[in-house]
């Protein structure tokens, strides 16, 4: 399965890129994070603070246990600060 991964705010800075495409068999967001963390030091840094991690699956807010089997796009970012 091919997935677009997006990063925003300081997660984007730590990973060093705003998006990438990965091939994965991960079933949930949590599984995907485990794979991504191993990809680089930047990725490891981005995912080092799980309490400050938010995510969206196909542009809907999701949590770590959300399934991604049919997903096309997963985004990671810190807590939102709009308004």
């Amino acid at each position: 399965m091919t997935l677009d991964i997006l990063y925003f705010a300081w997660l984007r800075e730590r990973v060093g890129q705003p998006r990438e495409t990965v091939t994965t068999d991960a079933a949930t967001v949590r599984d995907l994070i485990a794979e991504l963390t191993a990809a680089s030091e930047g990725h490891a840094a981005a995912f080092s603070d799980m309490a400050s991690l938010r995510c969206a699956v196909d542009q809907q807010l999701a949590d770590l246990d959300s399934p991604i089997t049919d997903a096309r796009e997963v985004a990671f970012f810190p807590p939102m600060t709009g308004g």
Partner: protein
Amino acid sequence: MTARVQTAPFDLAAEIDGFGAGAGAIVTFTGVVRDDTGLMAALDIEHYPGMTERALQDYCRQAADRFGLTDWRIVHRHGRIPVGDTIMMVATAARHRHAAFQGADYLMDWLKSRAPFWKREIAQDGTATWVDAKSTDEDALNRW
């Protein structure tokens, strides 16, 4: 019934011209870039193109159902916004005042913590610092 994301400034007067026709009560909220330290130059706001407008629309529809809003509008800017400039606005219309007030208040709480925007403070010396989410904003959401 509009949710818009844009870099350009907006004009509150133009936004509410004709807004909420037939309603008895109209409430607007406008957020402005504040400089508490005297050292700030601007905010720089990042968002999630594709997701943002749809998320805003979802929150507005929820608020409209819950409070009986007859009209709503959100405009949120992104990119670099200098101190003193408006960041965003919410407008709600309803038959009665409490619905309009509650709808706008509720939307602001959702928008603060659930809409995909991230703020960075740009100091006059160019230093950029990501704004931390406030636990009080998360608490505010739990009121509803």
